[in-house]
């Protein structure tokens, strides 16, 4: 156990601080994601890639910085940007999920064509996984693709597709081998959102915003070569992708930032002239959450160390999505309660402008519920922890049609 940074990381830290001093004024505002990056964000992202603060470990030939994988370096970069309250670069499903997937299982051509533009923010992706009939049972996807004259012809429907209304491309899980057992019948395709026959309809959620879409496919043509890894390998590829998503959601930095905001909120909000931090019931909830966040951060450090040593963290990693979404929700819950009745006006301005604090917390509070459901719901996570982490027997299969 040694939490001091060793010399090379101290040097990296100094280098980042110098970068931020020189270029920090060009950073877009932190937060306010979930929309297509504007010119300022794209310009900033290119600077980050050039210096190796984004796309750091992506090989140079694919447009990255070409550094060796090093989770400690990644942690130093993240913490320096957070500390300076400077935008740490784009996070989206293309960068966080598709790029690592292609690097792991994509063809040379796919890597050359897609990785560079994606990490620079020029190419935005959406994920075509869930379907109206298959939420948690992802392997049961029914959207089908048939090979005809060198093209996949796609028909069906996807749902819960984040950012589809402004994305350029989609990575799609669809059924290409209808005669095979369900897990072996899937393939993973890459297609343009401009394809004729493809229609994305924004889906309004409980937050009042359209964070998701329904996507309809009617004889959508996708060139045969746009498959990742091969026919019937879709389930394997999708799991490579999901592994990266679940890590993304349990982020300790977000918990720390939320806790700090909550402390400020309770120190400034009042009831009858008394600060909430001075009222035992609010203070106790804050203290419990502070303890949980300390534990969560320590757990994250442990995972980080194991990742750096190439150790598979097993059940310690499997708990991250479930534990992280629950903790995130408990944090936003206290914020909503601190605003109380005065925080009930909810007049969201949509994607074009910044909302007031109470509305923003209420959006997060509701969005957190969406996070518990998306990307493998809470109940599915618990099954995974129990079956894969604790080696408990699987649920007996229901006799009959899958």
């Amino acid at each position, binding site marked *: 156990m040694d939490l*001091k940074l060793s010399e090379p990381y101290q040097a990296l830290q100094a280098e980042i601080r110098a970068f931020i001093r020189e270029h920090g004024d060009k950073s877009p505002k932190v937060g306010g994601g979930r929309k297509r990056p504007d010119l300022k964000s794209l310009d900033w992202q290119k600077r980050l890639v050039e210096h190796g603060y984004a796309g750091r470990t992506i090989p140079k030939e694919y447009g990255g910085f070409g550094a060796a994988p090093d989770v400690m370096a990644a942690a130093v970069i993240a913490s320096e940007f957070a500390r300076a309250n400077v935008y740490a670069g784009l996070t989206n499903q293309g960068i966080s999920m598709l790029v690592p997937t292609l690097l792991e299982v994509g063809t040379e051509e796919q890597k050359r064509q897609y990785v560079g533009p994606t990490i620079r923010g020029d190419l935005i992706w959406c994920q075509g996984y869930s379907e109206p009939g298959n939420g948690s049972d992802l392997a049961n996807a029914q959207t089908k693709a048939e090979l005809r004259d060198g093209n996949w012809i796609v028909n069906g429907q996807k749902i819960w597709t984040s950012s589809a209304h402004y994305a350029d491309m989609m990575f799609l899980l669809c059924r290409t081998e209808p005669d095979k057992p369900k897990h072996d019948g899937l393939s993973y395709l890459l297609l343009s959102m401009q394809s004729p026959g493809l229609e994305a309809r924004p889906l309004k959620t409980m937050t009042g915003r359209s964070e998701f879409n329904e996507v309809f496919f009617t004889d959508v043509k996708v060139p045969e070569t746009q498959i990742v890894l091969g026919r019937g390998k879709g389930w394997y590829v999708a799991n490579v992708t999901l592994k990266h998503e679940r890590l993304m959601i349990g982020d300790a930095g977000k918990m720390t930032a939320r806790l700090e905001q909550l402390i400020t909120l309770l120190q400034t909000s009042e009831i009858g002239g008394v600060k909430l931090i*001075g009222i035992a019931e609010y203070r106790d909830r804050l*203290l419990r959450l502070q303890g949980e966040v*300390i534990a969560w951060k*320590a757990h994250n*450090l442990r995972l980080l160390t194991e990742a750096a040593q190439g150790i598979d963290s097993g059940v310690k990693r499997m*708990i991250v999505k479930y534990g992280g979404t629950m903790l995130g929700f408990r944090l936003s819950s206290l914020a909503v309660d601190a605003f109380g009745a005065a925080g009930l006006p909810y007049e969201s301005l949509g994607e074009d402008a910044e909302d007031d604090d109470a509305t923003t917390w209420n959006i997060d509070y509701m969005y957190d519920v969406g996070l518990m459901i998306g990307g493998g719901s809470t109940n599915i996570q*618990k099954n995974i922890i*129990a079956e894969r982490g604790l080696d*408990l027997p699987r649920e007996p299969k229901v006799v009959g049609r899958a």
Partner: protein
Amino acid sequence: MDFGLTLEQRQFDDSLRAFLADRLPMERLRALAEPGTGYDESLWRSLVELGLHGLLIPERFGGAGLGVLDAALAAEALGHAAAPVPFVGNVVMATQAFINSATEAQQDEYLPLIAGGDCRFAVALPSLAGQTGSASIAMSGGRLSGNLVAVADAGAATHFLVYLPDGHAAVVPADASGVSSRMRRSVDRTRPVADVSFDAAPAERLDAANAPLVAAHKVLDAGRVVLAADTLGAAQRMLDSAVAFAKERVQFGRVIGSFQGLKHTLAECVTVLEPCRGMVWYAAYAQDALPEEARLTACHTKAHLGDIGRDIARLATEIHGGMGFTDLLGLHYWFKRISFNRQMLGGPERCREEAADLQGWKLQA
């Protein structure tokens, strides 16, 4: 940066756990719980040979010169085995007190005795720790008077180390004139508590600290972190036992671990318990390496493990069904160990109140 254990730490942990598993099968634990002194001479001597007692003691006094993290790892192993060993008071808190508050001569006299297992300190910090129960302690003219209730590790104590409200500590031999100690069987049958009264008992003050209260808090914080580690070990043992039971027990023609109700309960337990391990490591490391975080993390870790420990203890017992509730299975020894640890050196409410004070979060009536 490396947030993990060294090879030496893992090896010591392995050997300690193997030793305890060998020496404390259920029937032995039951036998030790019967007299309930919380002490077994042969176990104690064997642990001396393993080097447990000198973990925190500087090498020049015959110890290993290690840190609170090493003590926390040992405590986790002791909690896992429900071992009746007066560890927290003697090996952790008394040692920290002598290191931080004693003169060179006092260290010379006592630290080698602790390292060699030749004395056993019970430590009381009545006003600082915020335990419930009345306590009154005063010292004048080298003599200590007053009463203490529910002192831990006192079943076979050779010495008492008693803190005064100003942060000064006093050493009193258990057999000194004016000392009377009444052992009380506690809810944890493997560990008693003692009510102790001092009637002008001769006492030796530890006066060497420049800031006695700061030094006293270091003792308290280390004690709290190590108790939390003990709870972690005990809770992990109960959870492991519940998982194993769920894989064996058959009901309705199925292994009960295949029922989603049980799976989800066990998944919940792992999700809350596993981050506790990182928390304990972090807080223990902070005691030696991150002084500005030492107090806050100690308070939070003691409080959080108290709460999580209680949840795991209940759920793991429930999963064992009727057997879990019986004396037969012996699972209750760990349930009670967790209960005991929760109340010692300040419960979660008290610890969180201190955490609030540390951050200037004062209540406004």
